[in-house]
């Protein structure tokens, strides 16, 4: 079925298989492999993209359902070869370890900051609650979002005994 959609500001027109989900369509048909599959069942959030301004698990959206929508994936976060403030904050706050959850985490954080430029820690936790991370323990990710929104008093936190 022919679908038209805008992804990261670029218009696409493609013939999408009706039984393909948006995650696989983005990865295979559009060649944007930054968005990952972690469970295929809408639990882990690794496949999170922003669709018409809202985060969705792209493994639970059919490609054909995305006809006429505007989508942002992780590849759309940096502009003109420069990391966004959010990405820079993730890097500066050690919010990336294995990186597999990172694309989804960024999209959930991006959607939050788009709606709420100065979120509280609680609001950040709720926004990323549907994104599993097994490596970081979330804390440095939360600090990165605080940092990106100008709310982090000091980076880091290891104390010496």
């Amino acid at each position: 079925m022919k679908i038209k959609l805008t992804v990261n500001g670029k218009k696409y027109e493609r013939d999408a298989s009706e039984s393909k989900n948006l995650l696989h369509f983005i990865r295979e048909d559009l060649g944007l492999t930054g968005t990952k599959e972690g469970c295929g069942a809408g639990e882990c959030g690794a496949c999170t993209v922003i669709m018409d301004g809202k985060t969705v698990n792209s493994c639970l959206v059919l490609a054909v359902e995305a006809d006429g929508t505007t989508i942002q994936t992780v590849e759309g976060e940096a502009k003109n070869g420069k990391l966004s403030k959010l990405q820079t904050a993730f890097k500066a706050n050690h919010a990336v370890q294995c990186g597999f959850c990172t694309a989804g985490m960024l999209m959930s954080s991006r959607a939050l900051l788009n709606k709420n430029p100065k979120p509280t820690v609680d609001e950040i936790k709720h926004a990323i609650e549907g994104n599993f991370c097994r490596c970081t323990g979330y804390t440095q990710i939360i600090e990165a979002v605080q940092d990106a929104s100008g709310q982090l008093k000091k980076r880091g936190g290891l104390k010496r005994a």
Partner: protein
Amino acid sequence: MLQDFGYLAPKSLTELYAVLKKNSGKAIILAGGTDVIVNMHNGCVAPATLVDIKKIAELGGIKYNSKTGLSIGATVTCVEVAENKDVIKHYPLLAKAVGEIGSPQLRNRATVAGNVCTASPCADSSCALMALGASVELSSADGVRAVALKDFFLGPKKTQIKPHEVLTRITVPADMTGAAYGMNKLKRIKGHDIALVSVAIAKTEKIMRVAVGSAAPTPVVTKDLAANATLKETLSAVSAVAKPIDDVRASKDYREFMISNYVEQIYTELFNAKGCKK
């Protein structure tokens, strides 16, 4: 996805009825997809066709009227209900219950109607809706019929929806506007989880209802209780409908205990007039 299936997206109800009739038994309605696609992933269902109802304008929209109450279209998402000003003001129990379903990503797609139609015994929205005395409108080429939600569920994943029928709207009566409420649900983690048990209470000056989830083959609700029912009467009414079991998530004993505990806790808050909070 690993299964092959077709996709149809009718643009009107008439078209939808025709599609349902033609694909009788082999089509499943696709609204938010957060249950259907997961069930397909797990191999629980294998429809030949998914029928997307999101392009049907009549199925959208949240309407509120002080005389007729609340009407939620079948394609309205959880986040739309949770953030709707009228729902928050007039039916805060529903806003809260729906706002706690799943994760943000799931709430942005899942529809309340879909949550109801999935008919899981632990459906978060159903308890709140049943406590509020909600009904559903089931439509087909032959017309529309309203079914009280308390009568809608027939068993786990089974509802009154006939073949060729579709749930088009959920209605919540005006006489529950501004009802005092409380709800609580037991989960294994603070993050998104299926409710191990859940309790929702809505109380007006005239009546009180307690709905319980994950305690029977369907979500259940007590008979209408007097607004000044005692705690003992309330607990008794609850134990008449809530019969939890042992499973991998929790034991029967703990579920029974927590149901009573939640009822007692919410009842106390409501009757101490401390306001409507968990």
